[in-house]
């Protein structure tokens, strides 16, 4: 589903580019005018479909933008409305600041500062700080407590849920399945089965899962399984408390194969002797997994995580076909909000503001990719 979830193939400049970059790469010197012939069509399209729209949409986001034109200047009011007055975009149910919340907020801010300080110190001294893990845990507890108190909701928050749960579960299952599959003869078969959803359109994937989630126990597999246990029928896609989890599960189902294939290739790169040596030294299976396998695939894991996060920011088709953002607006995500505000809603300025927010969320990844590629091209 990395392909079909409305994201397309998202490449991430990878490790080996350095080695591959040598072939044709030379310092920029000389000018062959033929370059214009080769580049012109592509650059023209990039200018018209990427550069100009980015500038126009950015400017439009400060306007009311009736029928997409730059009219009715609003300043920052589109953004203000999205963040403070639009419960469909982001909403905090209890924004009052009582002492408990203040302490929790302090814990979160304090641990954020601590992490920053530790990161700087670590870079300077090249040592690992043992208390960093503890600070990170504190930060996690603080954030969870704050969300429990403020109960955020809305499209932006749904994207946060997607990032946290979809990304971590896809990576976890992908790694587990890759490791388990590497131990059996039918490895290729298992990987093929899990990978198959990659070819399926998000539209078809959405139909498949609407079918599985159907509240009718004669149609929906899940309710058919739950019925004998006396549970249900559960309206997986009709209950605002469940719908996001049901959608995330379908998204996970579609993407695990992608992670499995990538991680399985990375596992093949781990020299067998290392694991053999560990085993001879009496390491348990759990130790081998946590101390050898996980660290050795940490780079592909982080690259995959970035790809999956980009997937989440751009997520649209699955939501649109499965729930139309519903029930009500419970399962909206930002890409859905952008479409909804601009096209059926006709609020082009507001839609443009959502598009700009999407772009801003992706800019750190953009910088990461560019920086990574630049250092590789130089060395």
């Amino acid at each position, binding site marked *: 589903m990395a392909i*079909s979830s409305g994201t397309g193939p998202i490449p991430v400049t990878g490790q080996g580019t350095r080695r591959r970059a040598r072939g044709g790469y030379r310092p920029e010197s000389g000018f062959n005018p033929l370059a214009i012939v080769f580049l012109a069509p592509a650059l023209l399209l990039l200018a018209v*479909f990427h550069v100009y729209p980015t500038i126009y949409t950015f400017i439009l986001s400060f306007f009311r933008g009736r029928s997409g034109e730059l009219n009715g200047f609003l300043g920052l009011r589109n953004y203000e409305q999205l963040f403070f007055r639009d419960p469909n975009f982001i909403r905090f149910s209890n924004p009052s600041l009582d002492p408990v919340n203040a302490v929790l907020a302090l814990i979160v801010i304090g641990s954020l500062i601590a992490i920053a300080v530790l990161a700087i110190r670590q870079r300077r001294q090249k040592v690992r700080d043992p208390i960093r893990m503890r600070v990170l845990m504190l930060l996690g507890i603080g954030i969870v407590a704050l969300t429990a108190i403020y109960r955020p909701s809305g499209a932006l928050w749904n994207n946060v849920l997607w990032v946290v749960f979809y990304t971590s579960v896809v990576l976890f299952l992908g790694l587990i399945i890759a490791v388990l599959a590497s131990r059996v003869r039918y490895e290729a078969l298992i990987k093929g089965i899990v990978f198959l959803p990659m070819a399926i359109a998000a539209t*078809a994937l959405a139909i498949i899962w609407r079918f599985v989630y159907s509240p009718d126990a004669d*149609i929906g*597999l899940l309710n058919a399984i739950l019925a004998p246990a006396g549970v249900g029928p559960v309206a997986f896609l009709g209950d605002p408390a469940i719908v996001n989890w049901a959608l995330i599960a379908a998204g996970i189902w579609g993407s695990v194969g992608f992670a499995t294939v990538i991680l399985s290739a990375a596992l093949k790169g781990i020299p067998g002797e290392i694991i053999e040596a560990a085993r001879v030294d009496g390491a348990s299976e759990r130790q081998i997994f946590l101390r050898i396998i996980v660290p050795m695939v940490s780079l592909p894991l982080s690259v995959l995580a970035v790809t999956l996060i980009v997937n989440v920011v751009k997520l649209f088709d699955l939501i649109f076909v499965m729930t139309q953002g519903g029930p009500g607006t419970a399962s909206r995500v930002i890409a859905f909000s952008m479409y909804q505000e601009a096209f059926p809603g006709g609020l082009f300025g507001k839609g443009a503001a959502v598009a700009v927010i999407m772009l801003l969320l992706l800019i750190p990844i953009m910088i990461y990719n560019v920086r990574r590629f630049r250092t590789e091209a130089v060395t």
Partner: protein
Amino acid sequence: MSESAGALAGPAVEPKPRTFAERIVRMLGKTPIHIALGLVALVWLAPTIGLLITSFRPRADMQSTGWWESIFTMRFTLDNYRQVIEAQGMGQAFINSVMITIPSTLIPLVLAALAAYAFSWVRFPFRNSLFLLVIALLMVPVQVAFIPVLRLYNPLGFASNYMGIWLAHTAFALPFGIFLLRNFFVTLPRELIEAARIDGAGDIGIFRKIVVPLSVPAIAAYGIFQFLWVWNDLLMALVFVQNSRLNPMTRQIQGLLGQYASEWHILAAGAFLLMLLPLLVFISLQRYFVQGLLAGSVK
């Protein structure tokens, strides 16, 4: 990906079992793994197979029994497909999908290959900076382009014919294509290209006779990616195809969903028509696809 010599605990690590008993013990030792993988296979196959079976079941049966029970009745029909193709417009939508997908795959393939060649083997000022810009553009979401591009399309009428969607798909496929193909092109041996140049070949000749033929795996990988992406896309079609007679299958199914939300015989058959071609392409060309995936992300 089918190499059986896994790095982990594979047969290479453990000594070969000698006796029958030893083999049995080994197999039993792996039972939890087999059970876990069996479960994985079940979870990943059951939903799709369920829908596949449903697409062949008569409508009357569906009201009373689940697809898992049809294994005992074994009553199947092609009526659902006939109805979806003829009455529900999926036949026309299939043709529209083909009409949208073929140019939207071939045009970016050509343009990206040309640009990637310039970025790897032709010298010009600001080559590195321009390439970094292409990498940056990879992250621009399509949503940013919707409003301004539709504004450009309106006076030209591009949203009511195929031009609009062809151009939009092409433009948004280019950064990835240029990136992927350039990374492949630069690995070609420099001697080969310089030798051709000494022999008097021009850049166009080198591109056509040397670079493209040697890069078939990368070009194929990109072509498959782009084909699957365009064929499976709903969002771009939703925005850039504003003439319902040109709707591709994804939009047609989405439309059916509004009318027949619980008519599963129609939805199941429609979904499988949509999946048919990608699955065929995917299964027959999986090797290229996986190679491209690895080159594009982690390798």
